[in-house]
């Protein structure tokens, strides 16, 4: 375990030392992180059910002790798995940033970013958890800085603001809990006696704190701003992995505290809302990286549905319900990391080749970038949960868990669970519409000839990084029983057990529904071969098809005639206008020039939840600014005043 961490430290230091030699620094720095992540993924997978400790014997402020249990092992595995693909991808992708900043620094920060996430999930006391947590936030903010622009600066401010709020909530939750247990060690937190009210307050603080980092509704607005602003290899890690680290925190708290029923239901309701709103907002984005970031909101929602079921299961003392819920949540965690990582890497390749994030001017790129196109196709299939890919398996478990929850007694839980099932089904339908992400970028005719002509396939390390995750999409789907078996090792370490992966490649729910993914894959591939068999038997298609322009009812075909991303969801947008509040503008430039039409739907929650806070802060800062008058003697007086105040407080208490 320590050798994995040391490798990242090595990568970070070496790439900093090679500061002067830009291109070598990035190759070596990202190379080391590839090796470290590959080794780490192997290590954490092999030791997934074990517990380990280590401490550095340096007498720092606190003696740093880290311990890793099955849950941390699982999250470490997810982190290193995606970091492996992303580092490999970065080896050649980073070259595009050579003119924008030092690649050595970038590689160094990248290594540290992965390391900080690994340390968060292995921290064993409040102090080091919070230190690593804040480091993770700050390093990722630095990494966003590499795309130096005003919009990314604004994104960083929003991101840091939310992270600050979240950090405050998390720290308060920790301190309240530590106050009850009498120690800052995590090991003392289990089954601490406390009043239900206090437990609920701690839970809500932790839920808001971690949830805002995870990007759940209504704290999701920073995600589509910050994730697209980062370099792609970093966005893949932020969107695929970093937000999962926050879920790790939620799981930890739910295992420590005396859980209550309504917590589980609250998590489920928030999860259902996040998934529906996330996908609805994703559908109307023009910036494909922002679209993917909104998808993370949706998938966090789906994971929360699973985790909420698990928490509810603990609360009503039903071990099998808890188990299937956590199984679903954790399975979707790794699945989302894989396909979201893949989609971000694919999006990065498109950005690398076209230098634009605007979806509407791309098109036809599959002819220029066949491998990237294939990778994105699989990624969108994965996120749409089509069988036999990985997304399907975890959504199946999520459905099974919620169905089992809906079978319980009590009107309220039944309503919450059944409506959440429907919300998830509707989310599933809406995600399929994301075929447009693939189709508008890669299919059809090029909408901008110049961009199309300059586009070329991504270099080899980027393709390898994507293909690794493509294999992951298939492996975590078809190999569901093996994956389930391993996740069950994690889940049974804190919850009950049932036979989730019976012999013979099956996966099963506690209710007894059983499916076999290898068989489904066989049926689909068998059915796919049937039409070709018919073609051969009928002796058809002996000649190659003739290539023509698409049929345009007798008019001369122009590439402007084809479907674009906006109109593809036009009906949906009209149906849901209360949610988008878009104000289309039409500008007529006279008969001989094209009409300029703009339509940019907005995220209404920004105005509801964020804008008032921003206004209040701006107002307050305006008033407080009087205090900052530049006179040193006044500042000294402030310090003196504060000292007196604290003395007075300590005297009184």
């Amino acid at each position, binding site marked *: 375990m320590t050798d994995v961490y040391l490798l990242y430290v090595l990568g970070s230091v070496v790439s900093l030392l090679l500061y002067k030699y830009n291109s070598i620094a990035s190759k070596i720095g990202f190379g080391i992180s590839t090796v470290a992540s590959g080794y780490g993924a192997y290590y954490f997978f092999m030791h997934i059910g074990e517990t380990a400790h280590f401490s550095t014997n340096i007498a720092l402020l606190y003696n740093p002790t880290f311990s890793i249990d099955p849950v941390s092992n699982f999250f470490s595995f997810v982190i290193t798995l995606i970091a492996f693909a992303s580092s490999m991808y970065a080896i050649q992708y980073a070259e595009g940033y050579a003119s924008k900043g030092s690649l050595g620094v970038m590689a160094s920060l990248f290594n540290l970013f992965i390391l900080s996430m690994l340390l968060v999930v292995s921290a064993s006391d409040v102090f080091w958890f919070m230190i690593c947590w804040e480091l993770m936030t700050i390093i990722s903010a630095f990494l966003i800085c590499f795309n130096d622009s005003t919009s990314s600066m604004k994104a960083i401010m929003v991101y840091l603001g939310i992270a600050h709020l979240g950090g405050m909530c998390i720290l308060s939750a920790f301190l309240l809990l530590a106050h009850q247990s009498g120690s800052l060690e995590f090991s003392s937190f289990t089954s601490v006696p406390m009043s239900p009210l206090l437990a609920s307050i701690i839970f809500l603080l932790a839920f808001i704190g971690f949830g805002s980092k995870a990007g759940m509704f209504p704290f999701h607005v920073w995600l589509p701003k910050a994730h697209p602003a980062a370099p792609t290899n970093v966005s893949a890690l932020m969107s695929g992995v970093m937000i999962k680290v926050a879920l790790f925190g939620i799981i930890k708290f739910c295992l420590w505290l005396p859980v209550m029923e309504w917590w589980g239901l609250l998590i489920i309701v928030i999860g259902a809302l996040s998934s529906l709103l996330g996908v609805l907002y994703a559908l109307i984005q023009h910036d494909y990286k922002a679209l993917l970031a909104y998808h993370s909101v949706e998938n966090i929602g789906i994971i929360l549905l699973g985790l909420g079921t698990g928490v509810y299961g603990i609360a009503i003392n039903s071990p099998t319900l808890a188990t299937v819920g956590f199984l679903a949540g954790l399975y979707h965690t790794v699945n989302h990391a894989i396909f979201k990582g893949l989609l971000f890497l694919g999006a990065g390749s498109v950005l690398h080749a076209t230098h634009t994030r605007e979806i509407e001017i791309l098109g036809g790129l599959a002819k220029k970038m066949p491998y990237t196109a294939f990778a994105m196709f699989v990624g969108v299939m994965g996120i749409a949960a089509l069988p036999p890919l990985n997304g399907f398996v975890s959504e199946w478990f999520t459905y099974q868990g919620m169905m089992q929850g809906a079978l319980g007694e009590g*009107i309220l839980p039944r309503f919450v669970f059944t409506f959440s099932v429907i919300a998830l089904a509707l989310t599933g339908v809406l995600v399929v519409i994301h*075929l447009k992400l693939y189709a508008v970028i890669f299919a059809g005719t090029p909408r901008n000839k110049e961009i199309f002509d300059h586009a070329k396939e991504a270099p080899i390390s980027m393709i390898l990084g994507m293909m690794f995750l493509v294999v992951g999409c298939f492996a975590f789907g078809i190999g569901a029983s093996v994956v389930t078996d391993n996740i069950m090792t994690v889940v049974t370490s804190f919850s009950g057990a049932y036979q989730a992966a019976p012999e013979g490649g099956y996966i099963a729910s506690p209710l007894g529904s059983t499916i076999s993914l290898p068989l489904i894959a066989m049926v*689909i591939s068998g059915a796919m071969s049937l039409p070709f068999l018919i073609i051969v038997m009928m002796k058809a298609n002996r000649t190659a098809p003739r290539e023509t322009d698409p049929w345009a009812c007798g008019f001369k075909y122009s590439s402007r005639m084809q479907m674009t991303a906006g109109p*593809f969801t036009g009906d949906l947008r009209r149906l849901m206008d209360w949610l988008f509040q878009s104000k289309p503008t039409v500008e007529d430039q006279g008969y001989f020039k094209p009409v300029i039409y703009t339509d940019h739907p907005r995220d209404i929650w920004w105005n509801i939840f964020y804008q008032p806070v921003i206004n209040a802060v701006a107002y307050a800062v305006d008033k407080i600014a009087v205090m900052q008058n530049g006179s040193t003697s006044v500042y000294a007086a402030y310090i003196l005043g504060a000292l007196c105040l604290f003395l007075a407080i300590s005297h009184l208490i």
Partner: protein
Amino acid sequence: MSSLFFMIFQVIVIVLVAPFFDGVARSLRAKLQSRKGPPDFLQTYRDIIKYFKRNRTVPHCSHWVFRYGPYTLFGTGAALLAVIPITYSSHSLAASCSDVFVVIYLGAMLRYIFGAASIDSGNPFAGVGGSREQMLSVFVEPVMMTSLLVVMLLARTSNLVEIQEMVRSGVIGYQIPAFAVASISFLWAMYVESGRNPYDLAEAEQELQEGVLGEYCGADFSIAHAGLILKQFAMIGMFLTIFEPWSFTNPFLALIVFIVKAGVFYVAAVFIDNFGPRHKLLTSFRSNALAALGVSFVALVLYVVGA
């Protein structure tokens, strides 16, 4: 292993007889419209054979998504039919892929391929057709899912074979109010999914469901068309499996009974789709869908309060 044989067998037999029922429906529709119509019920077979001899054109902007679109559409339709338990029973190997969620997500796969191929064709009408198809599912899927959820909760499983056997043996069934109401809303969803007027018309204007077919020629066209017919049969099959599962235990007899029942549904739909204008998506279609959603919610509430 024999269950896998029957699974393949049922798909092949339905693929072979589906054009016959399409021919019957076309004759009947022609009679209702006072047209002469095809000479006999075998016209669809002759059409297919004729198409197979034709040459093909493809838009030169398209890539493999469009070019292999008909085959993947047909394949998904066939996979949908395969996972509907017609000839096999529970505790067989084939039963472990016959799950409600597998059916729903295979349907999603069909739409996914349909939409991607429609944009890839570069054809403006195909794109509109693809978009409309997605929108239809936004309306239909909540209704379908709510109805199925009620059934699954009553049966306490999502396995289609087990649900079918429970309804057959009377463990669950129309004696439960929630089940009876769910059957109504599911019937609506099934009808819309099968792409008929007044919700959609499979062989009408280009911008409707078959928009993407406008760009296919020859064998590609007939394979894609057949794929959509297979999907209709699969949707009817889904309804029959859950709500009208009575049949023989002998697989061959069961298949014959199924084909007759599904064929009757397929042809009888002509009596609905021939009358009345087509619904507009965001106005009358929406109010229709809301009514159906209301019915399915009634079923759900009946379950939730334990009736």
